[in-house]
Every structure is written in C-alpha cells, then in structure tokens.
C-alpha cells in the first residue's frame, strides 16, 4: 500500500508542475492527507438492459438449464471452464484471464425480495438501494458523497455519459457526468466564475456555487488530462473508450473515489447468442486491458471494480431465441486486493424456482454495504439506512 501511495504522490507532484498557476491544488493535497479515506477507489459498471447471467456464468452440466435452453447455450467445447460444473461464456476470455490471476470474484444469485421486472423500476431499486416498496430520490453512491466529500476536493465522483444516474445523486453532492474531458471543459468555458453571488436568494446562491464547482472540476480535469496516455488496445467502441478514459484519469492522478460507467444493450429478447456475446466480449476485453493498465502503474491493488445488472433473465428461453426479464443475477467484483477469489457462493439452484425465475441468495445491499464498510471505509449503516451484513469478499 505504501508504495502505491507514494507513486500517486509523485504523480501529483508532477502534475502540480504541469498545473502551475492554479490555486486549488495545494488545498486539495491538504484535503487528501487528512482524509480518513485510504485512497481506495471504486469503479461501478452497470450492464444495462438486464444481462442474462445464466448465459454469462454458465452451469453447463445442469440438466434443467440444458432442457430449458435448447438453442442459446454456446456449444460445450467453446466454453471457458472454471470448474467441472461452471464455465464462462466463450466471449469472455479477458475475464477468464482475470479469474486465473486471482483478480475476480463471482457472486451468484444476487437480488432482492419481491423483485421488479421493469427495467426502470429495478434499475431505480439497484441505484438507490431501496427496497421494492420504497421510493428514494438519492443514490447509494450519492449518499456516500454526501458523507465523505469536502468542499476542497476538486472532483466528487465521475460518471461517463451525458446524464447523471440517480446512483450518483446525493442530497448535497452529486457526481459529475461527462462524455469526455475536452467536451466538459469546452462547455464550462462560458461560465464566468469571477462574478460571485452576493444576494440572499438561496436558490441563486446554490446555482452560483454549482457553477463555480463545475468550473473548478473542469479546470482540474483539463489540467490532469493526458498526463498519462494509455498505449494499450482497448475495444474500439464507446465502452472501450470510456474505460480507457477512466484508466487515464486514474493514472494521471485524478483523485475521484468513484467512477461510474454503463454498457447497454443487454435487453436480449431475440437472437440473444450473438448480441450478448458481442457485449460480453467488449466488456471482458475492456476489463482485462484496464486491469493491465492499472497493474503497470501499480494502482490495481487500491482499485475495486463492481459489475451489476438490474435483473437476470428467465431460465426458459423464449420462441425468438432470446430470453425475457427475470430476477437474480451474478455480480462481478475485481481488484488486486480481494479476500475471496473465484466463485463466492454456490451456483443458483435451478430446481427451486419462483415462477420460472431464480431465487436470490445474496441481497445486493449486502454487497454495497460490504464495499462501503470494508473498501471505502465509511459508515455503511448510515448510508444504507440500516444495517446489512458484511460479506467476506473484500
């Protein structure tokens, strides 16, 4: 840990030279050294549309699965076998590699009671960490930002994309959505932050403060931008570019505790095999290159990547060689510092279904609570609104 921290400080020093003339850097360095946070960072990856978990981590010898899915299971000789019972989808060589290195932990049957099969509702539940009957307007990471962020930090948390997910919205603090740093910087240029607001209208004061924060974040990111440029080959698509940008930010010394990115297209009601394989291949290649990048910079050990999807899909395939909305799914956790490597819990019991859907074994809020408590070293109970048990993967 010590060596990684010193590496990062060196980067900061270097960038301080590059970023000469800015006032926020010293304040930010001070904030960093007094912060209780260990410098661990979290990357959350959302597979949007409902990834078919049973065709991602495949219990390939299970008779029930084989009987219910005559056309969509990839042929057995192509599967990437993890054990005698379990294999990864053939498109996931990158993830297989991470598994072999002990950088991957697979949690099975993650879900929540009374699951919703609506994309919007279930995504809302995952992002706000609410129960199925509750409506919450802040996200679990937003509440983390509320608790841990201080004004001197130049960035709160970063989401790759045009729209901020509710996951990243707190009551007081919000993550920063951006397509890429240059575009963010360019649109921030019209902000004139030399004019301070002196009136007593609280809403106007809030807007002026927000624009000052934007300007400061945009300047900070622009100055850090491309201190490090990756020479590695990421998948040549939007998700690949986003992961490259995150790696470059981290290695360039951007101090954001959380990054959020989404890969969409998993709503495979028809012709699933090819569509899903393409997406899984993008995902898994990008993750592998990302890990290589961070390892080479000695930053993989204080990085944790968590991947989820709003729901899994029905066990039985439909008539269009696809699958319909289901429940329960795998969650992937990656990093150089895992306590539990490989497969975390038993595979889903396909002989015990709820109306054709898998039952959940691990509540997703336990996964969040574990990450908040053991990784981000914060008060998980407060952020989650109640106490959830810690799982031992980290």
């Amino acid at each position: 840990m010590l060596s990684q921290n010193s590496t990062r400080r060196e980067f900061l020093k270097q960038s301080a030279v590059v970023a000469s003339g800015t006032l926020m850097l010293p304040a930010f360095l001070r904030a960093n050294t007094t912060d209780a946070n260990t410098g661990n960072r979290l990357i959350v990856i959302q597979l949007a549309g409902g990834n078919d978990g049973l065709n991602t981590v495949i219990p390939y010898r299970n008779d029930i699965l084989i009987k219910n899915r005559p056309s969509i299971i990839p042929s057995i000789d192509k599967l990437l076998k993890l054990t005698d019972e379990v294999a990864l989808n053939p498109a996931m060589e990158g993830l297989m590699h991470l598994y072999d290195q002990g950088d991957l932990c697979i949690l099975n049957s993650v879900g929540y009671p009374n699951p919703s099969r609506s994309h919007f509702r279930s995504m809302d539940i995952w992002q706000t960490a609410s129960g199925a009957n509750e409506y919450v307007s802040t996200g679990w990471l937003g509440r983390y930002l509320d608790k841990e962020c201080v004004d001197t930090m130049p960035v709160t948390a970063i989401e790759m994309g045009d729209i901020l997910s509710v996951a990243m919205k707190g009551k007081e603090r919000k993550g920063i959505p951006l397509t890429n740093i240059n575009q963010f910087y360019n649109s921030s240029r019209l902000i004139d932050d030399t004019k301070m607001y002196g009136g007593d209208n609280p809403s106007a004061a809030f807007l002026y403060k927000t624009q000052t924060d934007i300007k400061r974040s945009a300047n900070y990111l622009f100055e850090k931008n491309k201190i490090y440029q990756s020479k590695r080959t990421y998948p040549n698509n939007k998700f690949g570019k986003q992961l490259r940008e995150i790696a470059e930010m981290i290695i360039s010394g951007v101090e954001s505790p959380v990054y959020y990115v989404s890969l969409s297209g998993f709503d495979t009601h028809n012709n699933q095999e090819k569509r899903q394989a393409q997406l899984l291949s993008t995902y898994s290649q990008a993750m592998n290159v990302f890990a290589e990048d961070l390892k080479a910079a000695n930053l993989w050990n204080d990085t944790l990547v968590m991947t989820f999807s709003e729901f899994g899909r029905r066990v039985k395939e439909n008539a269009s060689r696809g699958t319909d909305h289901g429940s329960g799914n795998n969650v992937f956790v990656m990093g150089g510092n895992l306590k539990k490597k490989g497969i975390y819990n038993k595979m889903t019991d396909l002989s015990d279904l709820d109306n054709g859907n898998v039952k959940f074994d691990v509540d997703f809020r336990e996964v969040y609570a574990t990450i908040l408590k053991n990784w981000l070293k914060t008060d998980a109970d407060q952020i989650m609104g109640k106490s959830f048990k810690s799982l031992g993967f980290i």
Partner: protein
Amino acid sequence: MKLSQVEVQHFFLRSGFGQPFDLIEGYIGQNPNKLFQDQVVLSQDCASVQIEIVPQITMDPRQMSTDMRKEMAQQRKQEIQDLNVQWIRQMVSSDAQLREKMAFFWHDHFACSARRSDIAQGYLNVIRENALENFGDLLRAVSKTPAMLNFLNNQQNRKESPNENFAREVMELFTLGRDQDYTEKDVVEAARAFTGWAFNKEGKFIFRKKFHDNEIKTIFGKYGNFDGDDVINMLLEKKQTADYISQKWVRFFMNYGGHEKLEKRIAEVLYSTNYDIKSGLEVLFTSSEFYGEENIATRIKSPIELIVGMQRQLYVTITHDQSLLYLQRTLGQVLFNPPNVSGWSDGYDWVDSATLMFRMNLPQLIFKSALIQNYPESFDDNDKFKLRGPLKTLKANIDLEAMNNNLSQLSNDQVGTFILQTSIKEHYDTTNLIDQIIYLMSKPEYQLC
C-alpha cells in the same frame, strides 16, 4: 394590493408557464384577484390533446408475425411521442395557462407512464378536463383510467391473489401522503375492495365481478362490504386529503419549504367546498404570502417549465419534434415517462453539472441552432422515448419582428427584469437585442422563476 412588474411575472410564471412582455405590462398595477379571475375565465376552455391513433388490432398477439408485432410496437412508440409533443405545443400556445399548469401538476401528482397511446391519451384528457374542477371527480376518474390501473398493477388485483400496489399508492401518493392517517392493514383491506377494477382490450374501464372480493372488509376502523368507490369516498372524507393536497400545492407553486398557515387556509376552503380546485387555488394565488419576497425567483424551473416558458416569453418556437424530445431527455423530464410512481423529484434535484451547463448553453443552441453533442442512451429495447444518435441541429423559429416591437424600446433594466425576475445592476454591451437576450438567458438567474 397593486402588483409590480416582478409580482405580475411571478403570478404568471407560477400559475402558468410565463407570458410575453406586452401582456405583463398590461397587468402592472392591477390586483391579484383580477389576474386570477382573468385566468379562470380563459381556462374555462379545455382543448383536448388529440393525435391520430391507428386502431389497436384485436388479433391475438401470438398469431401475429414477428414483423407485424414489430411494426405495431413502432407505431405505438411514434404515437406516444406525438402525444408528448402535442401536449407541449398545447402548453406553449394555449391561453388557458392555469389549466395547462394544473394539468402538468396533476401529471406529476398522478404520475403515470403507458405503452399504449390510446390509453395514454385517455389518461391525459382526464387530467386536463378535470384539472380545475373537482378533486374528488378527478381522483375517481384517474383511478379508473386504464393507464393508471395498468401502471399500478390493478389488472392483477384479484380476489384470490390481491395486488396491493394500487391501494397503497392511492393513499400514499394521491390522497393522504406517506404514512399519514392510514395503516398497513388499511392498505391490505383496501386492496381487497379494489379487486375487479380493470380494463378491457378496447381500453375501457370494466368491473370484473368474478374477481371482486365480495366479503366484509375493515378499512379505517369501519366495517362493511366495501368496493373501490367506497374507499375513494372514505379517503375524501378525511380532512388529511385536503391537508396533503394543499401542502403539495404550496410547495410546488410557492415555496419548497411550505407555509403552514397558508396551507391550513387552503385546506379549509378545499374541504368546505367539497374539493373545488379553483376555490383552493384562489386562496393561494390571491394571498399576500404568495407575493412575499422570499418566494420570488426561488423556484428552479423544471425542464418542462424551462422549455415551454422560453417559447412563451421570448418569441421562439421549437419547431422540430425530435428537438423537443431531446431537450426533455437531456434535461431529465420526459412527459409520460416519470422516473417512478412518485413522480419527478422537484427542486434542486434538477441541477447537476451536466444539466446546468446544458441549460446555460441552451440559449446559444436555440438562437444559433448549433450542434447538440449529447445523446442520452437507453437501456430498454422497447423504450418509447429512445433517441438515436446526436441531434444535428436544434430547429427553432424566432419571430424577430414581434421581439423587436416588444423589447427594443425597453431600458436594459426592464429587459433584465423581464428575463431574470430580478433587477441586474451590472453593465453589459447591448448593441444587439439577440445578443442581449442570449447573455441574460445564459446567466444562472434565468434558471429560476
């Protein structure tokens, strides 16, 4: 009480979507009652929002070909988008501003999303027609729309397997407010009373007798063989319903923080008039509290208020359907697509770094028709508001003549006060009216109303 320019603007920004300067000017020095009564008269008119709907094919979906199903889904998606755009155009062009604003409020209060355009249109016209009349009638009518029954799963609410969603939200969101004056047991029992409320293939409300639980229920301490109408009547009998509605009004129309005394006065009138909406609103919009300085320009315009308001105030018309959908999506409020059953989260939540920068760049985009680079992605294959690729231009028409006639003779301070709801003291270059307007609209204060 004689109203100033700012106060007249305050009334029109909150009770409607804003007005052009010439109309504002005519009301300066009048009293709040005159403004309100004029709006009531203008709002007697209720134009329905109608789009052309290709009739639903009554064929069993299992017998359709894949192409046929796809084509139908595409058609419905297009129709919902048309309905969304038509409604926005109506907000922009209608003189019945009080009705338009109230319909918008009720869409949030009775938040609902639908995939079928015919039932979405039915729901919309129920809230439009009842927007200013009687809350009890509105509640009864909305509760029986197929759109709402479907959205809150009452189609699945049957005697042998009750679904509590509808009964819960009727209490929590529509009438009493969360955990106010009802128990978990009341929800369970009321769900039994609502069993059998459903709709048929033609999109009409039906009571399915064989699914209705015809036994004794205990609701709010009363004992009887109640049905859905009985539950709604019991909810309207509770004073808490009037309290809850007036609290929501004050927070939405006047101040995020509420105002206990005024809420009580509104609730009294609402309850004693058997829920006459106009009478309740009259108390609000003619009260001296409403015009208090702490309420002026403190509300962050919701995306719809921003998009509609700028077209009403500033001689601009966004002519392109896709542009209107883009703006809603990027700013985070799409009609017929609330984030969940509890509606949109109002207030400071509209603002994050991306939406604020987009809002501040928007005047440039509109007046200079620049390229829009953002394009929000969707995760649902069937998302009815899915967008494809970035928008090339934001197409808008500007009525330069009207703009010049109305604004070019005004002092800088008058134009500033008109656009920003506050007097701005700074000096800026004003050689060109459009540049001046863009400059003012790009200031943070323009986000407030």
